């Protein structure tokens, strides 16, 4: 079965420190990978995506993610965390069936808490 795993329910980081939110996936073919962020009582906001090309992808708000095909991972990173980064982060995968519709499979989410 195709799936996305976010192994950590919560990640705690001190402001100014680097952060990593982990994501691994299990899908066939070469998937398309996404990170979204959800602030309390809000919808999801797109952060970044990997389709092809350079394995290091840069996105909104200083976030970046590294695609590692051999480890089937797409970890989200930021060099210096801000308190305002505290939110729920979702990794998502779109299996590459070659079809035109973009149904996403989401991980269960990781709550990021950044303390001052």
């Amino acid at each position, binding site marked *: 079965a195709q799936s996305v795993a976010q192994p950590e329910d919560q990640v705690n980081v001190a402001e100014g420190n680097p952060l990593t939110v982990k994501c691994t996936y299990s899908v066939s073919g070469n998937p398309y990978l996404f990170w979204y962020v*959800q602030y309390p009582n809000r919808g*999801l906001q797109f952060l970044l*995506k990997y389709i092809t090309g350079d394995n290091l992808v840069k996105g909104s708000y200083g976030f970046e993610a590294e695609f590692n095909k051999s480890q089937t991972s797409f970890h989200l990173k930021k060099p210096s965390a801000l308190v305002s980064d505290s939110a729920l982060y979702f990794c998502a995968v779109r299996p590459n069936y070659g079809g*035109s*519709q*973009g149904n*996403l*499979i989401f991980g269960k*989410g990781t709550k990021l808490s950044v303390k001052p």
Partner: protein
Amino acid sequence: DTAVSQTPKYLVTQMGNDKSIKCEQNLGHDTMYWYKQDSKKFLKIMFSYNNKELIINETVPNRFSPKSPDKAHLNLHINSLELGDSAVYFCASSRTGQGRYNEQFFGPGTRLTVL
């Protein structure tokens, strides 16, 4: 200039009732989606729809039905509401098509509470 909007934001209703949630996008996208987010924040696709194809997640009860009057709208109708339908429902849209792998834009969500 809201990109994806949903109404209502909150919906409280009794078991057995029929209700609808509306979704509109002004992005010119060709595909729209409905997701359900449960109390544990787990997000699951319910439907995806463009003018050519409706894809239904097989786990979605047939009490749920999407209705699209035009490309900018995808409404969600729910019949005979049950307690387990309580969740936050998100609408989303994207531009798709062969070779297009664009991100989805999400609405603010509708919190449905079934009593």
